[in-house]
């Protein structure tokens, strides 16, 4: 099977970098501002003349004072201690679709033609950006089979929330708002599929999976009623298992008068193969910072593209983008809209990147993305399950997985005492990003959910598998090595889950300076 991947003798950057406040040297300046024109000073006099009594800041903020090179160096060092996707084989963060974010797209959004646009400019002057929003909506309609989109939600979670809002508005519009108070979702779905409808006031019913990896039709039928507002489904689930009877789920909910929502956060294996329309759902959301290549940016900014069928289009957030045959315009005349979920029109940079990414690939390229993502995952799965000790697949009797898979390290834990937290720390020693275990609750013990997107070569996947083979071997032969990891990271092990009392919370340097524990709180809780 080709050349064997060599394990790297990696060591993370270790700058021992202080907190920025510790680098402060009073009197230093990182940037200067223009001097206020003398004429203006003469005209208005002291600044006190312009500020109401009692409102002038008495004590200057205790911000650090540094010269420019020192600020730059500090944050460059911190960046070096961060394993971004550009730098590493970022297969571990499954459900996050860590793929290559093309650099050309970064040039587009950093172009002053985008960065210096004010959202309230006359649309005569924003025809370019509106055209991209409009054309991207047409692409998304084709990709999903939905009829209208909003790009206003600021992330996948907000996209799900916005769909819950549309669901509520739809039932209220039909006079059934008070009756349809329940939302159904699956326990394996992203927690937001439960939390967002709850935030919108729905009671949430979480369905457990059967041995198939998804809930049974009977379980669904048992909870569907005249109170059902709708269902939030993820397909494939975070486990990589596709629910082939999703249409039956949808029909059952529709028959009861509810709406069906597809969470397309795990869409990467479906481009050009399957979509929301054929599943019969009414709404969906895509995370443009996942399958559509917009970079994740240390957790945003992001975009949850919200797609709906025609009969729900009137409820989408205001404004939407229209085209009258000559000009693109913002349509605020939307009396049935849910309103606004984010200021202005959303994270348009994510829309531009996604637009350029779809254009660069075209219809065949998008399908290739999905097929290679599936191929990569199945190849990695085969090697993982056959070659790595102590690992197993969840729902083993369901053999097929699409773009990702949920494994369990339970056997390894039973055999060696080494836990997923230990393995995760040890993985960092080999230059990997930490992996994603599972959303809560953990239905599978010692879960592990990697996702080898289309951006990784066979050699990358081979290296990745070899690392876990090695770590598993270490767990069986020298478990302490794994338990005491990391050994080649920026810092060594720290007990980072000890805060249970809000009184101990130290999320600012000033709180740390006040509350810093005198006795060591760094001992193991055991």
């Amino acid at each position, binding site marked *: 099977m080709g050349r064997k991947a060599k394990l790297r003798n990696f060591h993370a950057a270790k700058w021992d970098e202080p907190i920025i406040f510790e680098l402060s040297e009073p009197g230093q300046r990182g940037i200067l501002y223009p001097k206020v024109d003398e004429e203006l000073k003469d005209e208005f006099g002291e600044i006190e003349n312009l500020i109401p009594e009692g409102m002038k800041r008495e004590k200057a903020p205790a911000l650090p004072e540094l010269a420019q090179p020192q600020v730059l160096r500090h944050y460059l060092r911190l960046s070096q201690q961060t394993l971004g996707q550009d730098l590493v084989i970022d297969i571990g963060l499954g459900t996050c679709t860590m793929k290559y974010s093309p650099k050309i797209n970064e040039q587009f959004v950093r172009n002053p033609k985008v960065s210096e646009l004010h959202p309230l400019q006359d649309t005569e002057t924003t025809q370019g950006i509106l055209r991209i929003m409009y054309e991207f909506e047409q692409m998304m309609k084709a990709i999903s089979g939905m009829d209208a989109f909003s790009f206003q939600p600021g992330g996948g979670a907000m996209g799900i929330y916005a769909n819950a809002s549309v669901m509520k508005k739809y039932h209220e519009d039909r006079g059934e708002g008070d009756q349809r108070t329940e939302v159904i979702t699956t326990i394996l779905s992203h927690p937001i599929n439960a939390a967002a409808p709850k935030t919108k006031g729905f009671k949430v019913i979480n369905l457990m999976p059967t041995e198939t990896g998804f809930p049974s039709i009977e379980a669904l039928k048992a909870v569907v009623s005249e109170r059902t507002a709708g269902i939030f489904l993820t397909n494939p689930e975070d486990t990589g298992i596709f629910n082939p009877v999703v249409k039956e789920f949808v029909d059952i909910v529709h028959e009861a008068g509810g709406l069906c929502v597809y969470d397309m956060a795990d869409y990467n294996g479906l481009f050009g*193969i399957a979509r929301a329309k054929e599943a019969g759902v009414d709404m969906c959301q895509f995370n443009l910072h996942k399958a559509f290549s917009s970079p994740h940016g240390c957790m945003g900014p992001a975009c949850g593209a919200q797609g709906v069928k025609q009969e729900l289009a009137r409820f989408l957030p205001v404004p939407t983008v229209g085209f009258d045959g000559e000009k693109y315009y913002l349509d605020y005349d939307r009396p049935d809209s849910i309103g606004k979920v984010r200021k202005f029109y959303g994270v348009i940079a994510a829309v531009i990147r996604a637009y350029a990414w779809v254009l660069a690939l075209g219809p065949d390229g998008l399908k290739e993305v999905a097929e290679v993502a599936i191929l990569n995952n199945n190849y990695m799965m085969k090697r993982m399950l056959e070659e790595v000790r102590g690992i197993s697949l969840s729902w083993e009797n369901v053999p097929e997985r699409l773009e990702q898979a949920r494994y369990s390290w339970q056997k390894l834990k039973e055999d060696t005492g080494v836990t997923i937290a230990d393995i995760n720390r040890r993985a960092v020693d080999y230059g990997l990003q930490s992996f994603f275990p599972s959303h809560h609750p953990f239905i599978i013990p010692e879960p592990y959910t990697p996702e080898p997107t289309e951006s990784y070569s066979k050699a990358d996947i081979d290296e990745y598998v070899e690392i876990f083979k090695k770590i598993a071997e270490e767990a069986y032969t020298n478990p302490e090595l794994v338990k005491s990891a990391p050994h080649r990271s920026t810092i060594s092990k720290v007990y980072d889950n000890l805060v249970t009392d809000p009184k101990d919370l130290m*999320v600012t340097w000033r709180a740390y300076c006040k509350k810093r524990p005198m006795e060591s709180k760094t001992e193991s809780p055991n």
Partner: protein
Amino acid sequence: MVKDFIHPYIPNGIKQTKDEMLKRIGSKTIEDLYSCIPEHLRIEGRLDIPEAISSELELKQHVEAILNENITCAEYTNFLGAGCYDHYVPAICDEINSRSEFLTAYSGDTYSDLGKNQALFEYGSLMGELLDMDVVAFPTYDGGQALNTSIRMSHRITGRKQMIVPETMSKGLLMQVREYNYFMEIDFVAVDEKSGQINLQDLESKISDQTACVVIENPSYLGHIDRQGEVIGKIAHKHEAVFIVYVDPSSLGILEPPINYGADIVCGELQPLGIHMGYGTGMGGIIASKDEDAFIMNFPNHFYHIYENEKGERGFARALNERTSYAKRDDGVEFLGTNVGLWAITAAVYLSLLGPKGMYELGENIIYKSNYARRVLGQVKGLKILYPDSNSFKEFVVNFDDSKKTVTQINKQLLERKIFGGKDLSREFPWLGQSALYCVTEKTSKQDIERLGEALDEIINNK
């Protein structure tokens, strides 16, 4: 069957590689690997989207040709603000937020993303100094969502459902507030006609033991500096309501932070701190509270906490996760998702660069220039500056009623002169007549302001 598909973004497109991988799997085709998707759920035929522009050169030409149809604030003189602000972005802010490591990291943990986590802790710490507060959360989607969560927090803490907000709150922000806090009742407190300051009698008449929170903006949406914060806070606290202040962080080098006049929760828009407007891409939501358990446990957002080990090494990790929907699904506090981490890091760089003196100079530049603009426009025949009895910070309201022209007409004529006039308020606040909200930042020059004055004089007085 398997064939070559060579694309720069997809390294495993080569037929030979695919064949090797399929052989290892034991499958003949890739289609076999997704046979679990039944026919009735499949897409028929190819996707109906444009054919690929697969060369980077042609893609660049195509996209840039479209983007070049835009005219930007770098080309015209801009007086628009109203929630998104045209501030100067120091070069180092862009240098850091374009670093591959930060740009393409995501939710990695204590060790793999130590630098990110430290930068996020530093964001909270620097913001903590600017706000003079100990508890600052990971920022949320935008200022509107920060206000939404602040209001929901007040509801959870007090169990009450009434909020009191100024009648001058922007309609955009209000749409967000209504949408998210749909189950609450909104009462609007009147403002004084001459000063725009909150009418305290009206506040007293509306507040009750049903009031969850009193919200003010400082500076207000219409630009004036609120001078009654302390009294408003006392009125709110007398009724055991939560006092929320929505603040402009660019003002805090010269204006008193809200905690010092009684705020319990402080929120606001992050974008002014080193983040480009990007047609609204740059929005982020600041949210901070008093260091009390009831507030802390009601945040839905991440907290980045500092830890030390026995070697004195520091790590940073999310704390009190049991609050969140990530841990508790529908039993968590609101919902949590991907927000604006890159903007948090950018704001940290910005505050580190500016320091106390830079924040002062920023505020000083804005307040002098903005007041100059207010004076210059006030001298144009046919224009009136509304709320003359208040000081303003960076925005102010110009009324055009005496000119007999609409803001739409005036702004079109300004556009011909390469000026983006102020935001039209005539539909947002009909009682203000033909009025516009003008914004002046440190980027606006004295000459820009004088040119605006001359242009308006020409337009209105046919000079």
